[in-house]
């Protein structure tokens, strides 16, 4: 693996057995992503974009093949090792936000730090308050997800993804549940923060306008990944 490569997928295959009929999502798929790259995964509905992301996030296991993240194969990790991987190496931003409903904004953002258990209360407070400030939700720190608008929820989710300071951020249609204007703002916020921190971003989208803002565009088609050449649009 190239020393700049942060993620490497080798001969990946994923199939689901629905009602005893195997459904192959992709097979013999390979991909390399470099540290600090911003990559868009595009494709038709049902092509397996989210499945690919869930494999990268360690939420599911491939049927065949290997996934290496920072020189470590993650598809053989135990459940606890995968949890630790999700806490330290990757952060996930979900289309449906997936905020923990009994936690307020502050608690949702600080949850990965609490789970890690190595931070002092003061550190957690400082990091969380800074992030709240950066995503413009300082005054919504004590609000519960159910009282936030969609845009606010996604900003909390972005802050949460940044809180753990993981090198890789996986975002699954982060603006999919938002209206165009709010979506644009949320995306700008995400790209600005990712650039500022030098993180690797893999974003799932079906919107080519969003994809074109990334360094690379990879299309998932015919059970395989194909790179689409493009000129990156400025944010």
């Amino acid at each position, binding site marked *: 693996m190239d020393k700049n490569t942060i993620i490497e997928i080798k001969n990946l295959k994923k199939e689901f057995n629905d009602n005893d009929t195997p459904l192959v999502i992709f097979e013999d798929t390979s991909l390399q992503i470099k540290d600090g790259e911003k990559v868009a995964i595009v494709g038709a509905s049902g092509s397996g974009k989210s499945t690919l992301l869930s494999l990268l996030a360690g939420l599911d296991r491939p049927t065949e093949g290997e996934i290496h993240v920072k020189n470590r194969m993650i598809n053989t990790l135990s459940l606890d090792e995968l949890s630790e991987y999700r806490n330290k190496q990757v952060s996930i931003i979900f289309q449906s936000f*997936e905020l923990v409903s009994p936690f307020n904004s502050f608690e949702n953002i600080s949850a990965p730090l609490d789970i*890690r258990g190595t931070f002092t209360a003061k550190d957690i407070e400082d990091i969380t308050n800074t992030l709240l400030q950066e995503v413009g939700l300082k005054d919504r720190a004590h609000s519960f997800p159910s009282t936030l608008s969609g845009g606010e929820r996604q900003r909390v989710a972005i802050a949460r993804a940044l809180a753990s300071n993981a090198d890789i951020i996986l975002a699954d249609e982060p603006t999919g549940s938002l209206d165009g204007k709010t979506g644009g703002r949320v995306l700008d916020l995400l790209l600005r923060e990712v650039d500022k921190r030098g993180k690797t971003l893999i974003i799932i989208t079906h919107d080519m306008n969003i994809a074109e803002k990334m360094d690379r565009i990879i299309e998932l088609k015919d059970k395989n990944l194909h790179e689409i050449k493009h000129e990156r649009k400025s944010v």
Partner: protein
Amino acid sequence: MKEKVYNFKTIFKFSLRIVSREWKKFILPFLSLTFTTLIVFTVLLFTNSSSMFLEDKNKELIGGDISIESNYELDDKSLGDILGQDIKVIDKSSQYDFSGILTKGDLNTPVSLSVVDNSYPVYGGLSIEGSTYVTPKEDEIYIDKNAQTKLDVSVGEDIIYANKNYKVIGIIEKDSKSLLSGFNFLPQVLISKEGFNRASIDKSLLRAEYTYTYIIEDTSKDNLTKIIDREEMRGVSVDIAGISEPGFVEGLSLVEQFLVLAVLLSCILAAVNIYAGMLYLLTIMRKSFAVLLAIGFEKKKLGLTLSLSLFYILILSTLLGGGLSLIIFNFIREYIFLNFDLELPLVDLLIPTILTLFVVFSISFASFIPSLRSLMRLNPKILLSGGQEPKEKNVFGNFIIITLSTLIPLVLIAIFLLESFLYGLISIFAIIAIYVLLAVLFYYLILTLYKKRSKFKFLTRTLISYKYKDGLFGIVSLTSLYVALTSLSLLILLQSTLTTFIQKDLGERLPTVYIVDIQKSQTESIKENFKDVTLFPNVGARILFIDDRDIQKGIALADGSVSREFGREYNLTYREDLLPNEKVVKGKWLSGEVNEVSVEKEFAERADIVMGSRVVFSIQGFEVEATVTSIRESDSRSGLPFFYFVFNPKDLEKYPATFFGYNYLDGLEKNNFTKFLAQNFPNISIIDTAEITKFAEGLIGGLLVIIFVISIPPLVLALFLIVTLIISSFEGRRKQSAQMMALGAKKKFIERLYYLETISTTLFSGVLGYLTAILGTLFIARYYFKIESTSLYNVELLIALGAIILFVVILAKVLWKSDKKPLRELLSYEER
């Protein structure tokens, strides 16, 4: 019209589709409703059958629906006045009892004679050795075994009463009425009214007890209670099956009261169970409903569709539950008959069916509506894509509405079961008050913990946040768990209290042998040889004055100013100590001062005797004046001697007295005792209570079986409720657990969080439930059962509660282990 038909078709189509496609989600509510129907119906069948059984036993003991007893003969007008115009008599019988002497050759014995009419007995209870009872002809007589032994007579032989010959036509084996009011110490014989007339005795010279028994048309409590008020005016005693509690009958009525409580507790559990089932259903169906709303289904139509879906489930579950219940009832009834020789009667299915359907349908409806309303308030966009949810307004207001609407059917049931509007209302509202109190307590506890959550570790902090955010559902779940565990604890404690009472107080205190007609000179020798025998002196006396009231003059005037009850001869006794069945309720027990007297409480109330009252007695022509220094409560149920007046020994020892006594002896000891008395003191009569005890023991055994059988279904229902709540809680937490794991929480952390939540809520509800049950048992035992001894520490219950916590842990573990759904699927972004 066309549109209406179309709407109905759509609703019908969608409701069928929801049930058939989403059937997995209906499993738990279906099981819950089936199980609830099964339990409520089974409990009602058993309580109805047991009530009929107990009523039969009750009537057997009393001799009819109503029994009026008097020290003087009552004419038809007086009896009509006591019964009242509204009581329709189906059958009646009258008898009088007095003592006399029977002879045969050189042998003679004092006996208690019962003179009966042709209708006697109006209700079962009299068995004759080797034959059946028929009214004796004018020259015929029935005698009991005791008289048979004393007179050495066989069936077919003649004996003499008042110089007339009577042929013995049968031996009385058992007269269940003998358990009714203590024990008759004299041998019993029975003759007809014609037979008594043949003896040409002036009835007015006898000190007779007159008994009038009735079978009436309407035996409802309201109808019978009216008689109680009328009888008090006339100095007569009226026993009413199911209302009066003389002697052993109280044991039966206690069990009936327990049955009513068991049904009520079952209904409360049923309500909570159905509510939990509905809440679960509506929670997991939220998204499906939202989809229907999103595709343009009107809210009203959706409400009707859901109601119709629920209706199918209700119909199916009540049919299945009802059918299973009938099978179980017949199986257990057969089992009880084969193993305990207790034949519970078959019951009319109409009332239990109506009651069960009412309970299940009305509670389902009452618990479905508030949940549906809260669901309808939500906008489909919020449900589908998670927009801003309206803030839960007026949590306590909603809680009160849900509680009240769910409990309204319970109030109606309680009124029906307790046959009293007031008691029904009070009992259910007391339960609501406790329920709401706990909900408030729980809410504030969580609120306080939530405000201070930053002081706790992340695990505890997460649990506190979960509980806080659960809001109304959390409160209802916890209070439901509390209700289940309280009901369970209460039922076990009451069962234990009642079992102890029936076994110890009613059973074990019953002496095995009585001895009567002991002379003062014989007492020392008896005590020397048999130390455990307890002897009581009897000094015959009449009351002359109570304070300034001249009793004998008042009776002679017959103006109703003095009840004729006080004109009879009373047995005074003297001793230094209280008996185990006695308790001083006012004043101090005899201190040794001159002419103190202790009076029994109920007699004191009837005779207007208070502390410091002056009572003048006539003993053998001597006047004895005594001052009342204590009022005693005496438990007459135990079969132990019962006296109205107790003196200091030194005040009465100088007067002539006969003694009687009792002892607890078995087998060889009893033989030795009998032999000793027969050899040394042939004048003393020995009464073996074996026959009576056998009947009493059989009855006690039956009562215990009934209590046990009735207790089981509500306990199972409580357990089922716990299962429903745990599964609901597990379902509710799956998503949050998945979210936490996506953030990096390890499985162990989630597992610990899950166990901590399940166990802490069960433990919290269990401890509170046990404490509430203790208070409930104290209250019910004291004011409803009217028994003093309560069983509050119960090893079985503690084991049961421990077993429930273990069961909860195992269930939680099983649910946890069986959840194989990948994390990816639990997170909604990829629902497959």
